């Protein structure tokens, strides 16, 4: 089996969960990776302070798309205020693969837009 492009990663890349747009949404954010031009946006519907539903949209590599897809399943149902506490390691753990320094930005793009949508802070991650 491939160390990076594992079955699970390829499955989420080819059949991303919670991808598309939400006609009515309470929060949204859009960002891109200036190094590669990849783009990712998110629409979030909030109910009782929790993420009731969300959709990612955009284009990117297997790592960035799989990270968005896999984490989307964990994010739905999470209190909005907890998103800002999620770390880079949280995403990488979700992916379950070793991420090289050159692919780190790919892996973190989805959490970057989630944090942008929920906290308004577009500057994460600082490193």
């Amino acid at each position, binding site marked *: 089996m*491939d160390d*990076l*492009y594992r079955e699970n990663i*390829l499955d989420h890349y*080819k059949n991303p969960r919670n991808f598309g747009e939400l006609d009515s949404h309470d929060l949204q954010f859009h960002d891109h990776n200036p*190094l*590669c*031009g*990849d*783009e990712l946006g998110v629409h979030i519907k909030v109910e009782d302070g929790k993420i009731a539903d969300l959709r990612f949209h955009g*284009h*990117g*590599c*297997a*790592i960035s*798309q799989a990270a968005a897809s896999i984490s989307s399943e964990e994010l739905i149902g999470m209190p909005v205020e907890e998103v800002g506490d999620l770390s880079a390691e949280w995403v990488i753990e979700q992916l379950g693969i070793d991420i090289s320094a050159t*692919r780190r930005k*790919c892996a973190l793009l989805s959490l970057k837009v989630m944090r942008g949508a929920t906290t308004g802070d577009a500057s994460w991650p600082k490193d």
Partner: protein
Amino acid sequence: MATAPDTTLPDVRSEFPVLTREWNGKRVTYVDSAATSQKPEQVLAAMDRFLREANASVHRGLYDLGREATDLFEGARERIARFVGADAETTVFTHNATEAINLVAYAWARDNLGPGDEVLITRMEHHSNIVPWQLVCQDTGAKLRYVDISDDGLLLLDDLDAALGSGRVKLVGVVHVSNVLGTLNPVAEVVSRAHAAGALAVVDGTQAVPQMPVDVSEIDADFYAWTGHKALGPTGVGVLHGRRELLLEMRPFISGGHMINRVDDEASTWSELPHKFEAGTSAIAEAIGLGAAIDYLTTLGMENVRAHEEGLTAYALERLPEVPGLTVYGPPDVSQRGGVVSFSMEGIHPHDIAEVCDRHAVCIRAGHHCTQPLMRRLGVGSTGRASFHVYNHPDDVDRLVEALQDARRVFEL
């Protein structure tokens, strides 16, 4: 099955130290020369010899060592100018092509453009020939316009004529060879049409000078910019060839040491050309290294280099479509393109293609290649790109195709 082309060049791979390296037991296939080229021993030796034996500041030393350094530096300038049919007096050393274009933007455009004027560039420019003009337009009130391209990546000359027809275009910017599409633009024709419409022309020759004979006097552009590190030379040295009358009347760009004639308390006068545009200590070793690089290319013969690039590009254009789901961008006719081939693959993102290629020690570029307006025109976020130089051979194309096939296997396509 495609047959490998003959080449007129000797096998020079052993003269490029980086190319003797191996990763995971595999010899490196370096097909990213459009990003930066590798450097031959001769360039390394020239720089090493200068720094060890002849290092001194130029144009200052009243001693033999300083004179030798100056002779090496100015000798490099003269050979570099001759290499592209230019005069040493109008050949300015910058730090890269980006700085060369910025010199025009700051020292000519800001003093000569205003509201109602237009800057016309093409849809296939590198960011280095886009962003400086965006800032010029923001500062002067001029308007930035684009000439479109055809679906197979050729400049639309009718579109150019239509835009020039406004009578407001004061400057045309055009890339000689596209770093993405490979398109070899008819720059002499574009310059002539710009002049007929009363506009100046700046040509970005970054991808052209390293791989084909270029005669800037024939092209007749008002400014022609290129960089050393893609032409087998080191980083840190670029070149701007300018029209003498313009360089004489322009204000300096960067100012300070070396570029003055006399400094009074309130104002100064400027040095002769080209020194007026070379403030501060130049990249002396790098200029000497670039001189050695163009000597190396001259020995190979630029006609031969061009034939070699055409052969490799034709072979790549023939072999790449063997990979299912692969799309190649740019003109199908190799006589209209340089040694750059961009492509995308159905079901695999360019970054993932590059990642799998890396496992095969095949170095390709993936991304937007500093051409985001062009990526939008092509309807993609990024592409993979292979680009060739004198040290590449058909087996490098074979290894690239093998790696791309493997990427399909990894992605279970």
